[in-house]
């Protein structure tokens, strides 16, 4: 039981730190609330879907911005919009914020700004991915040790 408690405390601390550092916001908590016996892996599924989506969108944007002659800003904007939607649905606050800045650069048709934002988005996304994967591993460890995942308010 100590192990479980320890793991649970680790989980709570880690979750709190993620919230504090702005990686996740309330929406993520909402998602966690939706997880129940009927859909025990809801959050993980949503997160994997989000990562897939992200990678696809980031690749699209990178390809569009690499065009030397005539960047199709409309396409980039559409991808950013999607990314913004996804990140706000999952509660990825930092990614969402970068997306907002990214959109304004797209509107201004500023290629340099877009490239910079793209870099930032990729960076934030990989950070988030690592952190969430750590979080999920902790969850699995708790479940494996027979405990239940504490609800973080």
């Amino acid at each position, binding site marked *: 039981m100590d192990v479980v408690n320890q793991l649970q405390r680790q989980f709570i601390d880690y979750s709190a730190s993620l919230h504090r550092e702005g990686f996740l916001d*309330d*929406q993520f908590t*909402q*998602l966690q*609330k*939706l997880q*129940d016996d*009927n*859909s025990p892996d*809801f959050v993980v*599924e*949503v997160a994997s*879907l*989000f990562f*897939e*989506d992200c990678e696809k969108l980031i690749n699209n944007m990178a390809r569009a911005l690499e065009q030397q002659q005539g960047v199709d800003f409309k396409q980039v*904007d*559409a991808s950013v*919009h*999607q990314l*913004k*939607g*996804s*990140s*706000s*649905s*999952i*509660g990825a606050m930092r990614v969402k914020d970068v997306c907002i800045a990214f959109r304004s650069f797209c509107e201004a048709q500023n290629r340099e700004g877009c490239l910079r934002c793209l870099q930032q988005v990729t960076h934030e996304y990989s950070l988030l991915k690592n952190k969430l994967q750590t979080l999920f591993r902790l969850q699995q460890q708790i479940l494996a040790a027979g405990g239940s995942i504490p609800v973080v308010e």
Partner: protein
Amino acid sequence: MDSCNCIEPQWPPDDLLMKYQYISDFFIALAYFSIPLELIYFVKKSAVFPYRWVLVQFGAFIVLCGATHLINLWTFTMHTRTVAMVMTTAKVFTAVVSCATALMLVHIIPDLLSVKTRELFLKNKAAELDREMGLIRTQEETGRHVRMLTHEIRSTLDRHTILKTTLVELGRTLALEECALWMPTRTGLELQLSYTLRQQNPVGYTVPIHLPVINQVFSSSHAVKISPKCPVARIRPAGKYMPGEVVAVRVPLLHLSNFQINDWPELSTKRYALMVLMLPSDSARQWHVHELELVEVVADQVAVALSHAAILEESMRARDLLMEQNVALDLARREAETAIRARNDFLAVMNHEMRTPMHAIIALSSLLQETELTPEQRLMVETILKSSNLLSTLINDVLDLSRLEDGSLQLDLGTFNLFAVFREVLNLIKPIASVKKLHVSLNLAPDLPEYAIGDEKRLMQTILNVVGNAVKFSKEGSISITAFVAKSELLRDSRTPEFFPVPSDNHFYLRVQVKDSGVGISPQDIPKLFTKFAQTQSTATRNSGGSGLGLAICKRFVNLMEGHIWIESEGLGKGCTAIFMVKLGIPERLNEPKLPFMPKVPTNHGPTAFPGLKVLVMDENGVSRMVTKGLLVHLGCDVTMVSSGEECLHVVSHEHKVVFMDVCVPGMDGYEVAIRINEKFTKRHERPIIVALTGNTDKVTKENCMRVGMDGIILKPVSLDKMRSVLSDLLEHRVLFEAI
């Protein structure tokens, strides 16, 4: 030789005589031969000689004469018959030619004589032309001088330079001895010597302006010769010899006001300066006409140049004045701003400082009222409370008024219940009125809208103030309050000519009349009513208290509401009526969207609030689709997911009760689908409720959603509670939204 019967006896030819004849004949022949040669030579030389034929004839005649004489030489001695023959022929020819010549000469000589007369005529003509040339040249010279003078004069805008230059140039052009300018003095009664050519410092001679000589010059626009003895011409010390001729010309002093737009400057100014020009003495020179013309032209030019200079001076002066005024105004403005800022700071501080102790006093006094007190103590506490309430009201009024005057007060517009306002006023005033045994009646017109857009608090304050005054100043009788919508004919009141209300579609004018049967107001006091702090001096009002600010504040509120307030009274003791009109907005249903944007109170339902509710979710974004599905599944719904508009249209059926549609994709997909769904389901009860999910909360999105017939909007990201309450609201109040 035969003897003849002559008188003198024949003598044999004498040798000496013979010799002399011989020589003379020879010389004659020579001369006769050389004359034609000379003639030919000179005629050849001169190209112009009309009568060549005559000369030839003449030459022939002479040659033949010479030949005759030559041949004569041979006849002195014995000569042959041939010689005699030649001699005869020669003589015959000579005779013919000389007769012909003589005849010709009869014709020719008159012609030759007439040539001479023509020559004389031409010579006269040439002399005349020469004279005219001389005249033109002088005129041109004059013109050149005038141009140069004008140029000099007009090249400067400084009045002194202009005048000085005029005199100098004139002096030079006309070789004058002295040139002087007399200007009229300020009084206009004298002419003062202002400028002279030779004397550097003109002594301040003045000459009265009404001398006949001067009048003569002023009345003519030409240069006039005047006597050197008249006062204006006596500017040089008396010379020993004959003074030169003097000419004077007037120089009109034009003023800006003389130049009307389409007229030439009217010479009605009657202000002239006098220019006097003197030829050198002892020079016997006379003033020529062209010189006089020159002088006149120059005088005119000088007039114009002077007026330009005057205009310039004036405009410079005006500009300097303006700059000074500007600076002064700027300073005044800054001072005013500082004063206002100081006052605002003061007010802000006082606001807080005054209200804090007041608050303490009022709060604690009312608390004290609640405790156990002796009747005296209670009375004292009540008095304290009443006084502090009054003081608090006064403070508020003063602060309000200053804010109103600042213009910093803005109305808090909102939709409110008009009837409720009147009822509230009535409720507040009823107790006081019943104490005074006054009957208060409220009359609201049937066409008065129940709801209006305006500043509820301040409208109430105004009505309360007006009604309160009515109650205050009535000892007995009744108060009647009427409110109705002002119609356009009544909108223009002859008593308030400066008030032009313009009714429009979404505004109306509320007219409220409060009639009381109290002490009334005398007509001369009525204008003072709305000035702050002014009170009518009757003792009745003195006792009623009040700071006199109430009506002033009301007036300002009413003005802010684009209205007008006034009081009518027929005199003391006849009661008075207070009337005001304010502009209020008409609330339209469409202005206030009834879509549940963010329901604030989450209703408490169980986790599975909507068991089995069939729901369709349309979202292009996989993640957000999944999240929405998760939410709805958690709430117990049966969720179908589609990722595009076409799929949605395919799948949607009357079994689906709610359709959640993401509309924040760029493009019209979501709205199109909504329209199609509306088309597909003709019967209202079969149609699913359409809710838009959007990250955009702006008016455009809202309007678009309403336009296509959606029933609600939810702002992403959606929390569980929000989703729950939205669903329950939607399912409960479905009927309401069909009305839109």
